[in-house]
């Protein structure tokens, strides 16, 4: 059994303006998993993510990360949980790429900062961008550097809020491959169902501050009724196989579909 890295129990959160964003969320995430949080706008995905490194703290419910209580070990947890926000212009706030990627390690008091920055940039395929200014980069490049800014802290859990929003198809493809290349535990909130089918092993449907479904990607994403009743839509392959071809063996990935189609014809 893999180690439990995130344990959330009965978490409730109400924003200061009275919006009840989370109404009793319980979930466990295990080491090495890649988990997608899906759900419509305002379902509480981002709110839930912000609890993972103690940016938001609730008095109702428990959040344990890597076996530690978040409130008591906030500093350590923030270095272990790398949080990548949706808008890279929020994530990249320093005047140069180097300063930004080095910000985490320097604040954490790590040694060999330069080496860590070099390695993080290499991991996201952005070596040689150290001296560049963020405002001269393309959106896709900024997104990659945003990921590097947390990789430089060598996190055990990578948390991403909408990793593929606003990027062009080519950059999106690159990001998906990049994310698939990381072995660390990944938790991402997204609307990009197609990406979920390619990068995640588990999908959690969040609706109205509660967990509506929690299971294997195959199980959740092929359940069209579930997705549609919660403001989502099944991947195009699922709809194609079910609604057009009236098949029961529904694939999630394109290569899988091609394979099945070949076998079907024989």
């Amino acid at each position, binding site marked *: 059994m893999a180690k439990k890295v995130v344990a959330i129990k009965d978490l409730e959160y109400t924003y200061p303006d009275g919006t009840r964003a989370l109404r009793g969320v319980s979930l466990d995430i295990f080491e090495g998993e890649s988990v997608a949080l899906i759900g419509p706008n305002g379902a509480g995905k981002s709110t839930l993510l912000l609890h993972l490194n103690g940016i938001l703290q609730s008095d109702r419910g428990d959040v344990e990360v890597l076996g530690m209580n978040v409130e008591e070990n906030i*500093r350590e947890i923030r270095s272990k949980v790398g*949080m990548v*926000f949706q*808008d890279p*212009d*929020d994530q990249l706030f320093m*005047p140069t790429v180097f*300063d930004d990627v080095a910000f985490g390690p320097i604040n954490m008091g790590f040694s060999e900062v330069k080496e860590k920055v070099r390695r993080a940039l290499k991991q996201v395929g952005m070596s040689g961008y150290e001296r560049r200014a963020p405002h001269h980069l393309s959106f896709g490049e900024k997104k990659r550097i945003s990921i590097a800014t*947390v990789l430089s802290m060598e996190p055990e859990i990578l948390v991403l809020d909408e990793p593929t929003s606003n990027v062009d198809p080519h950059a999106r493809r690159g990001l998906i491959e990049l994310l698939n290349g990381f072995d660390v535990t990944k938790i991402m909130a997204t609307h990009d169902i197609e990406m979920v089918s390619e990068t995640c092993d588990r999908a959690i449907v969040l609706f109205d501050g509660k967990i509506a479904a929690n299971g294997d990607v195959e199980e959740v994403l092929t359940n069209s009724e579930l997705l549609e009743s919660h403001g989502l839509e099944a991947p195009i392959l699922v709809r194609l196989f079910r609604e057009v071809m009236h098949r029961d063996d529904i694939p999630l990935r394109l290569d899988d579909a091609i394979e099945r189609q070949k076998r079907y014809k024989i």
Partner: protein
Amino acid sequence: MKHDFIDKYAELDSVIHRLDPRIKIISFFSFIFFVISTQPPRFSIIFAQPSEVLMGSLKFLFYFLLIFSVILVSKVPLRFVFKRSLVIIPFVLLIAIFIPFLKEGEIAGSYSFASLHLNVTYTGLETLFNVLSKSWLSVLSMLALASTTKFPRLLKGFEKLGMPRVMVMIVSFMYRYVFVLGDEVMRMKCARDARSFGGNSKWHIKTVGNIIGTLFVRTYERGERVYVAMVSRGFSGKIKILDDLHVRKLDLCFMISFLTFLTMIWAVL
């Protein structure tokens, strides 16, 4: 969108560009210090002791030649530097133009326009020359600094020279986000232009007011999001920056010779 109105040409490569930012800050700020502490030529004795007035004026010419040669070496286009340097002149002129008429002293010439009687005094002219030449030389020196140093390095230099980190951080955020905000204004302007046809000027002013208000709210919200991103990476209120500046022999040589020239012009001439 591309923006480079702050440190245009800082990407060029030259001896001056490669100098340590601290060295440049010290050198170019001392330049200003030397220039403003130089006695201006006394025009009132122009007929009595013309050589002294000439020498006084020559000092300023040499200051100019010094900064001019630095700019030449830096390969920054001269056209750009001079065009930029003139930006400040109207402001200075606006204040300084009245001085020759208002200062008391020996009269150099007088003019009459109908009932208006104006006297131009030597001391007034001195002050005018003083203000104009010194401000222009100072602007040239700051341009030489800004267009040969990338802004982040400039900030690092200031920080290493003891400028409070909070201030460095504020300026650094300003530099980072002025472009983002610029884009945001541009987008809002586009959205307005796409939907506004005619209308009276009162209506337009109201729209601009709304844009400014929206921009303020968005900036405020962005500030909160940026802060969350900072906190997520271990920011605890104390700003730490990696020290990667090194003063080399060449840097020291530049500074020493630059300061020697300055002292020579200031004291000897």
